[in-house]
C-alpha cells in the first residue's frame, strides 16, 4: 500500500484554450480516503483518470508511492478502478468478471478461486457468481465492479462517481458499504463525486474543486463545513446551503437586512474599505427566539421577519424568509448559483428550525441569529474574511 502525490498537475485537452485541471497539488497519505468533489466540469474525473493513466498529463507529476508514473501505462500502475457505468464484461459471468485481473496475471486456478470467493463473500455476491451482468440489478453490478477492484492487491482504489447511477435508497446503502469496505481493507482510496453528502460522509479528507479544475480547499469535512475558505466552498458544502446576506460596513458596524452587528476591531480592520460584503450563515445557526432562554437571546441578533413558506420534515423544519439584495450582491450570488449547478432563486433565507416550533406560514416570527457562527465574504474575490478564526473566538458581538 502506498500514498499518491499530485504535484502541480495540469491538464489541457487538445483544442481547448483553458485547462480542465489547473495546477492541482494534493498529497494523499497511505490508507487515506480522499474525496474529489465539485460541480460537473470541474475536472475531478480527469484528475482520477490521470492518476490511473487513462489520460495523459499535460504538466506536473503524479507519484504513486515514491515512483513517478506520468509515463507508465495503466497496467503498470497497479491501481484498481470502479467506473461510473461499472464497465463489467458482459460476456463473462460474475465469477470471471471478478477473476479477470487475476487471469491476466496468469494466477493459478486455486489461488483465483480463493481470492474470488473471499471478495464475493465480502460483498455478498456468493449466490450470483454464475450470472451474467445483464441478469443483475444496478446495485449488484456495482458490487461486482467493486469485487473486481478488491480481488487483487492494488496499491489504491479509485472510484469514479460509483453511486450516481443508483436510486437514492440504494445509494445510501452502498455508501455505507464502501465506507465499511475501506475501513476493513485500509487501502488508499480516491473517490470522485459531485454529491457533497457523499463527500462529507465518506471521506477522511475532501478536496473541493471548482470549474476549470482549480483546487479550492482540502480538509476534513468538519473544517470544510465550519471554516470554508471562500464563497464557493461555503455555498457548495452543506444542505440546505449556507445563506448569503448582503452586508455593508459602517465604522465597526456590520449592517445586515435583518439588523446590525458589531465587528471585533481586527475584523473591522480587515473589512474596512469594502463597500459591500456578503455575510454567510448556515440555516441551523438561526433559532426561533421563543425557544431560547434570555441568556442566549442576549448573545445573538434578534429580528422579526415574515415567514414565507414552511417545510416540515418530521425531524426538523425549514422556514423560508425572502429579503431584498442590492444589485452587486445579487450578481455575485447569481454567478455562484450558476457555477454550483443550482437554479438561480429569489434571495431568501433558509432557516432550520426545531420540528416542535409553532411558527406558521405567512406569520411574523421573532428569529434569532448566532453571530459567532457567521462568515463574512468579499463579494469580488469571494474570499472568506473570517476564515481562520475559531468558531468560538467571539469575533462578532452584538451591536
Amino acid at each position, binding site marked *: 500500500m502506498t500514498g499518491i502525490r499530485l504535484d502541480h498537475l495540469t491538464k489541457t485537452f487538445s483544442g481547448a484554450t483553458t485547462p480542465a485541471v489547473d495546477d492541482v497539488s494534493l498529497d494523499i497519505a497511505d490508507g487515506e480516503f480522499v474525496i474529489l468533489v465539485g460541480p460537473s466540469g470541474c475536472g475531478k474525473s480527469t484528475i482520477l483518470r490521470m492518476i490511473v493513466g487513462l489520460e495523459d498529463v499535460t504538466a506536473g507529476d503524479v507519484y504513486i508511492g515514491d515512483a513517478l508514473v506520468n509515463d507508465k501505462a*495503466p497496467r503498470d500502475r497497479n491501481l484498481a478502478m470502479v*467506473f461510473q457505468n461499472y*464497465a463489467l*464484461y458482459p*460476456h463473462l459471468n460474475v465469477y470471471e468478471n471478478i477473476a*479477470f485481473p487475476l487471469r*491476466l496475471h496468469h494466477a493459478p486456478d486455486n489461488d483465483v478461486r480463493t481470492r474470488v470467493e473471499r471478495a464475493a463473500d465480502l460483498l455478498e455476491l456468493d449466490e450470483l457468481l454464475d450470472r451474467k451482468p445483464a*441478469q443483475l440489478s444496478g446495485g449488484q453490478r456495482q458490487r461486482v465492479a467493486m469485487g*473486481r477492484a478488491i480481488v487483487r492487491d492494488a496499491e489504491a482504489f479509485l472510484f469514479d462517481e460509483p453511486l450516481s*447511477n443508483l436510486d437514492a435508497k440504494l445509494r445510501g446503502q452502498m455508501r455505507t458499504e464502501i465506507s465499511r469496505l475501506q475501513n476493513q481493507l485500509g487501502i488508499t482510496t480516491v473517490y470522485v463525486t459531485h454529491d457533497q453528502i457523499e463527500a462529507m460522509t465518506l471521506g477522511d479528507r475532501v478536496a473541493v474543486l471548482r470549474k476549470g479544475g482549480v483546487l479550492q480547499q482540502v480538509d476534513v469535512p468538519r473544517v470544510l463545513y465550519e471554516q470554508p475558505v471562500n464563497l464557493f466552498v461555503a455555498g457548495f458544502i452543506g444542505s440546505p446551503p449556507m445563506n448569503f446576506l448582503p452586508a455593508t460596513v459602517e465604522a465597526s458596524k456590520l449592517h445586515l437586512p435583518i439588523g446590525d452587528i458589531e465587528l471585533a476591531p481586527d475584523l473591522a480592520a480587515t473589512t474596512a474599505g469594502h463597500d459591500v460584503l456578503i455575510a454567510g450563515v448556515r440555516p441551523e445557526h438561526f433559532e426561533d427566539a421563543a425557544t431560547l432562554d434570555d441568556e442566549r437571546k442576549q448573545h445573538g441578533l434578534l429580528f422579526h421577519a415574515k415567514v414565507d413558506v414552511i417545510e416540515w420534515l418530521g425531524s426538523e423544519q425549514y422556514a423560508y424568509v425572502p429579503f431584498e439584495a442590492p444589485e452587486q450582491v445579487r450578481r455575485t450570488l447569481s454567478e455562484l448559483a450558476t457555477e454550483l449547478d443550482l437554479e438561480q432563486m429569489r434571495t431568501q433565507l433558509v432557516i432550520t428550525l426545531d420540528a416542535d416550533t409553532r411558527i406558521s406560514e405567512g406569520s411574523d416570527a421573532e428569529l434569532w441569529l448566532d453571530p459567532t457562527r457567521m462568515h463574512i465574504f468579499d463579494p469580488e474575490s469571494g474570499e472568506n474574511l473570517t476564515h481562520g478564526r475559531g468558531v468560538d473566538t467571539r469575533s462578532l458581538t452584538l451591536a
Partner: protein
Amino acid sequence: MRWNRKTLGWTVAGVVIVVYSLLPVAWITSLSFKQGDDINNQQFWPTRWSLDNYRTVFDTDLFTSALRNSLGISLIATAISVALATVAAYAIARLEFKGKRAVLSTALAIAMFPTVALVGPLFDMWRSLGIYDTWIGLIIPYISFTLPLAIWTLSSFFRQIPWEMEQAAQVDGATAWQAFRKVIVPLAAPGVATATILVFFFAWNDFVFGISLTATDRARPVPAALAFFTGETFFEQPTAAISAASVIVTIPVMILVLVFQRQIVSGLTSGAVKG
C-alpha cells in the same frame, strides 16, 4: 381488430416472400432427385425418388476436386480476410490517425469497383507471376474484394462497444492486445460472425474469378466447375446432376448460418454498462 389486420398483412407478406425465395431451391432439390428421363415428367415431384444424381456427382473427379478447391480457398480467404479486417476495423474505430478517412473511402471505392473490369489484367498478371490456376491466385482477389465489406461491418460493431470496457481492462492489467483479444473481440462476436458469413458467401459463390483465373482441376471452384458438367451422352443435358451439385454446394452455407445464428442474435453487450 386493427391489430389483427396488421398481423394478417405481415403474415401474408412473409409467406409470399418465403415462397418466392424458396421456390427455386425447392425446385432444384426436387430436380436433383429425379432419375434419367424423369426430369421431363412435367411434374414438380419426381415420379420415383432416387439418389443416382448424387452418386454420379460424387463419382466425377471434376466435382470432388472442385468441392475441395472451393472449401479450401473459401475458408482460407475468409480466415485471412476476417482476421485482417478485425484488426483494421479496430484501429479505425478506436484510434485517431492521419488518413483514416482515406482508408475508409479507398475501401469503399474498391468495394464498388466492377470485378469484371479487373479479370483481364489479373489474368495477365497472374500468368506472368506464375500463380494462374492456383489457390493463391483466387485467394488474393477474394481477400481484396471482401476486406472493405468486412472492415465497414466490423468497424460499426466496434464503435458500439463502450470505451470504458477497454479502459477497465487496461486498468485491470491488460495490455492493449489483451484488452482487444479478451474483451473487444468477444463483444464484437456478432459483428465477426456477420463479417465471416458475408466474406465466405462472396468467396463461395464467386463465378467470375473462378472461371477466369483457373484452367484445370487444380484450383477450379464449384460454381465454375458446374459449367463444365456434361451429360451421359452428347444429347443429354446434365440438368439433374447440376441440380444435385447445387444442393450439395448449398449445404456448407446452411451449416455456417446455423452455426453463427446464435452469435448473430445481438444484444450481447446488454448489461455491460448501465442499461
